[in-house]
């Protein structure tokens, strides 16, 4: 009998009081279109393609993002410049399929593809959800300010031979016996 009263009336009263106190707590939600919520920098939203500090495209068309993508929403075609750099001839993201998982960002070896806190991507026409390279490419460096793939990678391109990259040792001459 006592337990029944304790389990019903007392516990319910405590709950009622706890909920009543919420009346004086500031609302957790914001009035969205008028009031923008704070978006965390690591929020996984609209996908962009960034450029390196020199203003060149970072993407080297390695296709790793397309492979990592679980919904197959990335399509790209590799092309090559005369100085030996790879770049995507087209780069297409179908945002009507994209699930903003961020796997492409994790797979990217050159920090080219990045997810941003922007989420307002609604369109009236389904075809408008497909973004081409011109739409995806931004002028800035995104989250990584100093990173330039061709300056740190050992890949040989015109104007930069093996061993000339940042922090890179001279290649070992395997035919020489000198230490």
């Amino acid at each position, binding site marked *: 009998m006592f337990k029944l009263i304790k389990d*019903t009336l007392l516990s319910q009263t405590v*709950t009622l009081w706890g909920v009543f106190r919420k009346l004086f707590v500031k609302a957790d939600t914001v009035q969205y279109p008028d009031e923008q919520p704070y978006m965390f920098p690591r929020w996984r939203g609209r996908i962009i393609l960034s450029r390196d500090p020199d203003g060149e495209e970072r993407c080297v068309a390695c296709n790793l993002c397309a492979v990592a993508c679980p919904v197959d929403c990335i399509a790209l075609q590799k092309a090559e410049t005369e100085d030996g750099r790879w770049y995507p001839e087209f780069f297409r993201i179908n945002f009507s399929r994209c699930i903003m998982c961020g796997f492409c960002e994790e797979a990217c070896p050159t920090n080219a593809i990045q997810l941003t806190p922007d989420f307002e991507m609604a369109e009236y026409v389904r075809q408008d959800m497909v973004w081409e390279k011109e739409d995806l490419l931004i002028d800035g460096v995104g989250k990584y300010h100093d990173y330039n793939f061709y300056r740190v990678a050992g890949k040989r391109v015109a104007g930069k031979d093996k061993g000339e990259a940042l922090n890179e040792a001279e290649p070992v001459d395997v035919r020489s016996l000198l230490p």
Partner: protein
Amino acid sequence: MFTFAVGSALSIASILLAVIVLAALLIWVERRMLSFWQERLGPNRVGWFGIMQVVADMIKIFTKEDWVPPFADRLTFVLAPAIIMIVVLMSFAVIPFTPEVGVIDSNVGVLFVLAMASLGAYSVMLGGLSSNNKYALLGSLRAAAQMVSYEVFMGISLLGVVVLAGSFNLREIVETQADGWYIVPQFIGFLIFLIAGVAESHRLPFDIPEAEQEICAGYHTEYSGMKFGMFFVGEYLGLVLVSSLITALFFGGWLGPAFLPPIVWFSLKAGFFILFFILMRAALPRPRYDQLMSYGWLFLLPLSLLNLLVTGAVVLATM
């Protein structure tokens, strides 16, 4: 004819208008209060603080297709939502709002309210039964069982007040509380009536007949448009009714210090209980069905009988 007096046309018209407008307004009040208690903002766009949300909702519900499912029993299906509105509005006839405002001065007011509440069960049962849908049937099944078990001690819990006041007349019950509200001697009766009142108006935590999460809307699964709206408004009217009854029976009705007019005192007290019912909806989970039944029959019914017994003994001893 156009003065406030019990039974005058002005009195009846203003009660009818006020009660229905209040019931509609409660849709907004409830949504807003629930959202505050859940740390949200709630509907605040239409009109001042979102108060015109009621109008928007009404426009929506009035212009909706008035659809009767082909498999439903047409006559009963249409009749059921009307019953609950009529029955609850009838109950307001005996509620003593102020010394002047009221519809009838009935000497069996308490019995009348209980009778109307019992008739309200038909609405819910017939609504579910005529829908010819298994969820609706489950809902009306639950409603029937809940009504049967709750109306018994709902009546008995009020008898303590009746014994103390020596009258079934709600106005006399209010007037006898001039030297002390019945909440003090009848606290257990008040608690029992509160619980029974919640069950009677199908409010959370006792909205088992319409439990949205379990049986998708219970007895009004098949209803839409204004027929659903009548069930909905009927529920809010029931909420207002139970709050008014508690005010009249246990909290001295219109009585209060003279710096406010009686109607304000009555509204304040009833409003407090309306808000309390909304708080209960925000806070308490729904009990399991068998828990509700056993709680009613094995705990509250004996308790209310005991309460009546003790009250009767005390009244006899002090007479």
